[in-house]
């Protein structure tokens, strides 16, 4: 379990605010996602919770331990995978893993169970130096090293950034299996589509939490009627819909536009777009996704 109460962090003698008065809690055995862009304050929160950075104000605990007074206890019971690859480049896969096991007073064999699924995928290359590994392999090794002492809480700072769709899916499968073993996971990501894989999420922007809830509830609280509009010329459509007087918001989502209207109704838009010469027009009412909610919260 993780708690934060009114955590604030500034840099450069208070001129840059990274985290403004953030409070929330992560329950035991939960996958909690911090979703937000670069500069939102995600990494500062991770570093405060892993006792690597002191907050200016506020209190936080991890597994019942205070992040300031009991930092030693916390360091023994958490695993941390920073956003930047931080293993020893000139040690091999196996040497890195055994180094981290030794530091935490354990052995690879003792907790092999926990990492087996992941480690087997990189084991054929165990004599290769970490600096020579591909991005996907580095990511798997870093996760093994963060798990080797069987932590109660796992902190993963943007583990899937720059990783392709296939590896990202595999990675989330691994997280589900770790959760099943009772590990609490705090994970951050800039990919909105990964939000739905978390039990609860916090949408974060400019050091503030915009919303915290289950993905289903966040989507359910979207206050407007949302429509998807498609035509054979998406770019022209984007301009035309934006120019339509009754349009409240209009954003491209893949091959469709997601649109809200000032009076919550799609009346007249079809006629207007036909008059503009659009063909293969499809206008339908749709349920919003997390990204729609995030965009909505950003606007307000």
């Amino acid at each position, binding site marked *: 379990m993780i708690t934060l109460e009114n955590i604030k962090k500034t840099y450069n003698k208070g001129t840059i605010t990274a985290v403004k008065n953030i409070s929330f809690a992560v329950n035991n055995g939960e996958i909690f996602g911090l979703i937000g862009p670069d500069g939102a304050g995600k990494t500062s929160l991770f570093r405060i919770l892993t006792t690597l950075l002191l907050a200016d104000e506020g209190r936080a605990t991890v597994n019942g331990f205070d992040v300031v007074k009991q930092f030693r206890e916390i360091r023994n019971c958490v695993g941390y995978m920073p956003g930047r690859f931080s293993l020893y480049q000139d040690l091999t896969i196996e040497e890195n893993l055994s180094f981290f096991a030794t530091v935490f007073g354990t052995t690879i064999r003792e907790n092999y169970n926990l990492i087996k699924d992941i480690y087997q995928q990189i084991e054929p290359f165990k004599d290769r130096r970490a600096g020579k590994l591909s991005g996907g392999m580095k990511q798997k090794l870093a996760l093994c090293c963060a798990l080797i002492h069987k932590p109660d809480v796992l902190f993963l700072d943007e583990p899937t950034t*720059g990783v392709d769709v296939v590896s990202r899916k595999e990675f989330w499968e691994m997280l589900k299996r770790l959760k099943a073993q009772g590990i609490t996971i705090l994970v951050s990501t800039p990919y909105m589509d990964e939000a739905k894989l978390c039990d609860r999420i916090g949408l974060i922007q400019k050091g503030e939490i915009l919303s915290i809830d289950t993905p289903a509830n966040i989507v359910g609280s979207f206050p407007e009627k949302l429509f998807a509009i498609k035509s054979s010329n998406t770019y022209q459509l984007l301009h035309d819909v934006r120019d339509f007087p009754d349009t409240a918001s209009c954003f491209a989502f893949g091959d469709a536009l997601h649109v809200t209207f000032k009076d919550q109704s799609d009346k007249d838009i079809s006629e207007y777009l036909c008059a503009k010469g659009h063909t293969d027009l499809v206008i339908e009412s749709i349920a919003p996704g997390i990204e729609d909610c995030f*965009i909505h919260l950003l606007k307000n």
Partner: protein
Amino acid sequence: MDAVIKTEKLTKRFGNFIAANELTFEVGKGEIFGFLGANGAGKTTAMRMLCGLLAPSSGKASIAGFDIYTQTEKIKRNIGYMSQKFSLYDNLTVSENIRFYGGIYGMTRKDIKTKTQSLLEVLQLQNEAKTLVSELPLGWKQKLSFLVSIVHDPEIVFLDEPTGGVDPVTRRQFWDLIYYAANKGVTVFVTTHYMDEAEYCNRVSIMVDGVIAALDSPANLKKNYGHENMEDVFYELARKAKRQGD
């Protein structure tokens, strides 16, 4: 189609390893071409060859009408390149960065001056002309970085994962700029891990283990593979990959 990129069996080997295997494709003028692939599929190698930075092992290619073996310097003058790591100078101002890159590409002072005005207007950064780049938010840096890469009106601009790490609104604003450039006739060659962005391209290629496994418009790819979205198309093709990571 008026092809500005034309390759025929373009191949790059590193020892026994074939990073890019007989790539044959064309990209038309003003087209937005999405160049997708899993980590390690060979995208970066292919891009480096197309930019004239890496000599192919075999095959043919012409970029903006110039030969990829013998005219690499001419290629470099006629393309723009933006990578996910910014090439802007943090301790120069916005307008100094534009001036610097204009100078590198041999533009006259007069051209640089008018170009600076118009780029600042497109970005709506007129008030920030004298701001140090280090003080700009990430989203603005990305947009500036893109416009700097087309300051010399290149035929083609190569964008290597340009939209990583920004919020969803900024990411979409970036695509507005891509469309702006394409409408002006600049060919856009872009890689991304966001599959919704693949939908914004006119055509998309998907590389798997060094070969182009599929190439078509997003609509046709979805139809031919029987999927609702590009993510599922990509997943079906890329999960067959045997190579490990990049």
